[in-house]
């Protein structure tokens, strides 16, 4: 045998790799997709208008705690809101779905690569030598994910209620609400389906409903719940993206219909 083993091989420098494939493509797509969503949702949250149309309520603004749209649960814009702060009903609630996605295991892995190059892609050299991972502050805070999950589950119920509300339309002749179905109803319903598929496939939920047990066979209800969550969890990445796109699109839909740019077709 030649030389005895000594030191580890030298680290590769940033972006250095022997990979031949387009390793940069996936992080680039993630970077662009997430950036586009962040830019749009921030802009939409700051608007503070055109987030309702009839009984439709944009998911970026639901639940509307305070506001002037008629959907508000607790009344108009609160008087205690600082005058120097811009106001939008979205500010009061967006932290919950935002925090849920920010701390989601799938997104974490994806944005560590795409936004922080840690690593840029598998087996590709990194820009920094030091590394703390999720072991130290600040990223140790990612462990709060399950608390955001609890909020996300409540939001899912609220958004389902919004779909129910979106089934009712004011009859211009009588002024009464009648049952109906608009394209907007379908858009909001699809949002709940996709958001539900994403939320109910959460890794923390998978753990809480049964993953934490070693003898699931003794708990049939938890075992079924675990199987259901596992089934969605296998497609967690797919639902993460589909629900992200669709929640943004739902806001676009309500916004453009409310602005009169699009017409909301009634199916009945």
């Amino acid at each position: 045998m030649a030389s005895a083993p000594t030191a580890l091989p030298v680290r590769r420098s940033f972006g250095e790799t022997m990979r031949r494939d387009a390793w940069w493509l996936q992080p680039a797509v993630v970077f662009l997709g997430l950036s586009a969503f962040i830019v749009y949702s921030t802009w939409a949250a700051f608007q503070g208008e055109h987030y309702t149309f009839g009984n439709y309520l944009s998911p970026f603004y639901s639940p509307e705690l305070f506001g002037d749209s008629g959907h508000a649960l607790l009344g108009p814009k609160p008087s205690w809101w600082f005058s120097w702060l811009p106001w939008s009903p979205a500010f009061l609630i967006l932290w919950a779905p935002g925090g849920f996605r920010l701390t989601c295991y799938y997104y974490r892995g994806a944005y560590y690569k795409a936004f922080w190059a840690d690593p840029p892609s598998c087996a590709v050299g990194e820009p920094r030598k030091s590394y703390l991972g999720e072991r130290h502050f600040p990223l140790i805070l990612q462990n709060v994910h399950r608390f955001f999950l609890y909020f996300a589950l409540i939001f899912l119920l609220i958004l389902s209620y919004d779909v129910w509300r979106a089934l009712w339309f004011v009859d211009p002749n009588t002024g009464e609400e009648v049952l109906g179905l608009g394209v907007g109803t379908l858009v909001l319903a699809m949002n709940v389906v996709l958001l539900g598929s994403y939320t109910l496939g959460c890794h923390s939920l998978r753990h809480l409903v049964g993953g934490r047990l070693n003898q699931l066979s003794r708990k049939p209800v938890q075992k079924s719940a675990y199987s259901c969550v596992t089934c969605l969890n296998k497609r967690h990445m797919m639902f993460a993206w589909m629900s992200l796109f669709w929640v943004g699109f739902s806001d676009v839909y309500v916004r453009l219909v409310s602005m009169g740019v699009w017409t909301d077709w009634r199916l009945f």
Partner: protein
Amino acid sequence: MKTAAFKIWRGDASGGAFQDFQVDVKPGYVVLDAVRKIQADEAHDMAVRWNCKAGRCGSCSAEVNGMPRLMCMTKLHDLPEDQPITVEPLKAFPIVRDLVTDVSWNYEVKKRIKPFKPRAPDHEDGTWEMHQEDVDRVMEFRKCIECFLCQDVCHVLRDHHKHEDFIGPRFFVYAAALEMHPLDEEDRRDDLRQEHGIGYCNITKCCTKVCPEGITITDNAIIPLKERVVDRAYDPLAKLVQLVRGK
């Protein structure tokens, strides 16, 4: 007969370089066939480790075109033909020579994981009862062939050299197989959080991507272990529930 171009890393801890080779290859050749042919015909002193040539022993791990692969399971016809195929030793372990690295660190790590501790037997004859569905979950982890490709690709070891503080994906799989075993009573959560450094894993899933056994390392082993660690260390609500239930 077709010819394939190879660039194989030759050297040892003091340094090395890629050496070019041309090999006549037959249909169905895997990288290991070509490397062995080069060894037999041209580079008799080239160090390469292999054993089963069937993807079972985990000895022939190397980096082919920059990705950790089993040489014996990487077919030439799956690799692009327009450029030479590069073959290098693993990057997360000290080099011995050419394509051979010293992976003994892994065996030391394994010893640090608390062993299986079954509950008292269910029956007087010293046997237990287990349900298939409870065992199914850990069966996935038992497919591991200890090729250490996942350890090699993991940036915590590969780029950050945290060998002292982080046991790597292979051993999270091993710990998961024990920790989730229906008979096991040991609690490894404090070890996982502290000595085993599970918090260093940033769930980028490279380990899952390279595992030749298709073990869903990140989603089925690491994340569930991280969640168990949260139960233990970061969830005041869970603590409260435990307190109320008197457990």
